[in-house]
């Protein structure tokens, strides 16, 4: 297997055109930090976009930043931080969870996987901040979608399709995303000792308030001890965390109000900006589950009020460890590694737990053989599956871009 490492968009075109002619599929990667996420694809050669690197435009007052798709996230984040801005979708760094080093991802990879951290509930996911792109389709043609302004409805929003397409629709070469001001101050209200159901009620109450909560997570007992924040590590039980961000006086006001409004449920404590940043980075990067590399990790998105019930159903009879983000709507869940038949049973339990409430479950971390054994992404109904194939056809009729990474035949 050869890996092609183009240095210009024209060379990406050349590479894809060659792959089409040779009928040899390409594994499209940015910087490779999430290569083990998805179905093991049958690919002949690699298309490494990491040489397409560098910020090409950054206008803080216009709230936009453009970069070559392979630009390291670390470089983007450093540029934004220098101007007191951020990517508001708070992309997770999944590197450590997937067994790699931290800080290795690219902006193109963050978009292609539609990453989103705890702030998803307030600010949206990568999809909501993805303004424009140049990509090379599986036909070997460059196409542009979107623009470099924050408000644009000209033509179909193909950025939405590219976000979360795992490189199966286009090899992105240049991307533009929204940059937003970083909050002046952050406070986190901690609630101690709640069980999952009570924590769900607490997070729902916080989310229903006017306090513009920008993070609502719950760590059940047993998942708190590894935290670098001592209030969490030494809690001696479950910790529920509610975050508010914004101008100083507002944040203080809202944190105090939340403590008052949740005081009937549990003992509370408050983290200031520095500790808050530490805690939410741990939650964002799935830190509480990263420590056991042998465990299989699922990411499950459900209606927030259903989260506790779904987790309980999966955990019943299985030795699951899990925590909640997105006000209960995101469950990060780890199951011990097992032989193939037991794995089938656990997979079935995860899928069955979503039947009534809807949602989707993705197997984020598992050995290659297990990712080949069961669907990694949520199985689709026949109508959606057929449409997904037709959309893939419209970008990549010869199946040269990451074929099979999401679904067989796509």
């Amino acid at each position, binding site marked *: 297997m050869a*890996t092609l490492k183009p240095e210009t968009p024209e060379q990406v075109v050349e590479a894809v055109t060659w792959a089409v002619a040779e009928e040899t599929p390409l594994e499209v990667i940015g910087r490779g930090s999430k290569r083990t996420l998805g179905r093991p694809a049958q690919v002949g050669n690699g298309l490494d976009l990491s040489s397409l690197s560098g910020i090409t435009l950054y206008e803080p007052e216009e709230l936009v930043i453009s970069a070559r798709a392979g630009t390291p996230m670390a470089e983007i984040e450093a540029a934004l931080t220098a101007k007191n801005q951020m990517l508001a979708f708070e992309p997770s760094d999944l590197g450590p969870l997937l067994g790699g080093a931290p800080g290795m991802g690219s902006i193109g990879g963050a978009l292609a996987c539609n990453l989103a951290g705890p702030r998803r509930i307030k600010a949206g*996911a990568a999809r909501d901040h993805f303004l424009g792109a140049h990509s090379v389709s599986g036909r070997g043609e460059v196409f542009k979608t979107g623009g470099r302004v*924050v408000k644009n409805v000209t033509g*179909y929003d193909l950025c939405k399709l590219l976000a979360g397409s795992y490189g199966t629709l286009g090899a992105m070469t240049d991307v533009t995303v929204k940059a937003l001001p970083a909050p002046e101050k952050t406070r986190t209200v901690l609630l101690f000792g709640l069980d999952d159901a009570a924590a769900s009620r607490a997070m729902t109450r916080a989310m229903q308030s006017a306090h513009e909560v920008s993070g609502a997570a719950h760590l059940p007992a047993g998942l708190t001890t590894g935290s670098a924040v001592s209030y969490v590590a030494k809690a001696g039980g479950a910790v529920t965390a509610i975050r508010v961000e914004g101008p100083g006086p507002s944040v203080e006001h809202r944190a105090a109000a939340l403590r008052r409004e949740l005081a009937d449920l549990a003992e509370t404590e408050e983290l200031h900006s520095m500790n808050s940043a530490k805690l939410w980075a741990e939650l964002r990067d799935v830190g509480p589950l990263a420590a056991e590399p042998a465990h299989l990790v699922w990411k499950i998105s459900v*209606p927030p009020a259903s989260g506790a019930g779904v987790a309980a159903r999966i955990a019943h009879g299985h030795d699951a460890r899990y925590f909640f983000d997105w006000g209960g709507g995101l469950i990060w869940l780890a199951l011990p590694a097992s032989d193939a038949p037991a794995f089938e049973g656990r997979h079935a339990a995860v899928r069955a737990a979503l039947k009534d409430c809807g949602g989707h479950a993705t197997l984020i971390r598992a050995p290659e053989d297990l990712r080949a054994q069961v669907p990694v992404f949520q199985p689709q109904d026949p109508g959606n599956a057929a449409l997904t194939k037709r*959309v893939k056809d419209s970008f990549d009729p010869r199946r040269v871009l990451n074929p099979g990474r999401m679904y067989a035949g796509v």
Partner: protein
Amino acid sequence: MRMPDPDLAVLGRRAEIAAALGRIVPGEGVIAEVDELKAYESDGLTAYRQLPMIAVLPETTDQVSQILKYCQENGVKVVPRGAGTSLSGGALPLADGILLAMGKFNRILEVDLDNRCAVVQPGVTNLGVTKAVEHAGFYYAPDPSSQIACTIGGNVAENSGGVHCLKYGLTTNNLLGLEAVLIDGTVLRIGGKHLDSEAYDMLGLLTGSEGLLAVVTEVTVRLLKKPETARALLFGFPTSEQAGDCVAAIIGAGIIPGGMEMMDKPAIHAAEAFVNAGYPLDVEALLIVELDGPHVEVDYLVAQITEIATANGVLTSRVSTNEEERLNFWAGRKAAFPAVGRISPDYYCMDGTIPRHKLPLVLRRMREMSEKYALRVANVFHAGDGNLHPLILYDANEPGELERAEDFGSDILKLCVEVGGVLTGEHGVGVEKRDLMGTMFTEADLNQQQRVKCAFDPASLLNPGKMFPELHRCAELGRMHIHGGKMPFPDLPRF
């Protein structure tokens, strides 16, 4: 504006098609009388009119599915319509097409406050969603100025914005789920009450697809809690440059206001004459900034922004001290379109977006164009996100004026693209900007978009003649030329 040639064979089968649709939607669900069809002959872009062949008003998803399947099997074109408030001609009927009017889908199906969402039918009005949840202190954030009339289904089709979208996002950022019907009758459920999609983001693709990909029959929207309070600031500047600098400085200071609107002198004068909002008349630019949130935050930011405005040479500065004053500040801006309608027999509303720092240049060039075309122009502007709404004043009864207004409008939109912006920020392409798509996109860009259309609607029966300047056949678009196979750039490192 040229629409696709009517299919005479289809027109000849009109009675038969009406009868078939009548079997799917019994009772009074099919309209074939010319008098009654008149109600549908245009949308908010009133310069274009066309009677549909037949209008059909389904009440259930199953009926929509049967209608679309029938149309696909019989090669009949379909134009979906919500309330018909589109400003780009998105719901303009076709002579040989049926108009699918979704007005009877007008029920709120579920309000789920624990999950902060509501499930509604597409014919519910934008404001109707907020009305259904405001008793509990919630609201639906996107607020297009037609929100009393426009429907959620139309909002999805156009990805509608509003004055608050800088902070709260467009329609696409406020949806969780859809039920949509494809032209072959397939009913798709996409998303739900959870976040993000399980495969390709069809929810995001359908939002803003202008009725060309599918017909939406149910929408799950996100709800937000109403902010504790809101206050507005009214600033008058001696030049539009200074007003623009003030906007840049506010954002540069890390503040994203709930709304930030600018008006130029002609718009200020028209609005003031109409509603007496107390706007200063001796300024070149007016800026309205709205802040929402807890009292303590709003007061804190009011002080900061007032300081920024002062540093940027503000001439007049007022802060609302109560709700009545706040609404009064907005009254002129919200009435800007009808106010311009009072000083001119007709006006043409444009909708380009530009990188904000290009505003002085764009305003200057617009003044030159105004002289060239001998037509007045008034500007209202979503200042935070660079979305311009130039209103071109004309008189349709004067020979040639409509054409001049349209040419003027095209020149403005081309200018928006030239300075790095886009053709439309929130009104959509429709028929209005269809023929300008080539100024922003290459043929390859547009072909890729049309291939996506082919994945949904291979015979191009859903809302054809909108968005794309040229319709290609899907077979032609799908063809691929394979170029022979040398390993590319052999001198590059491999691993």
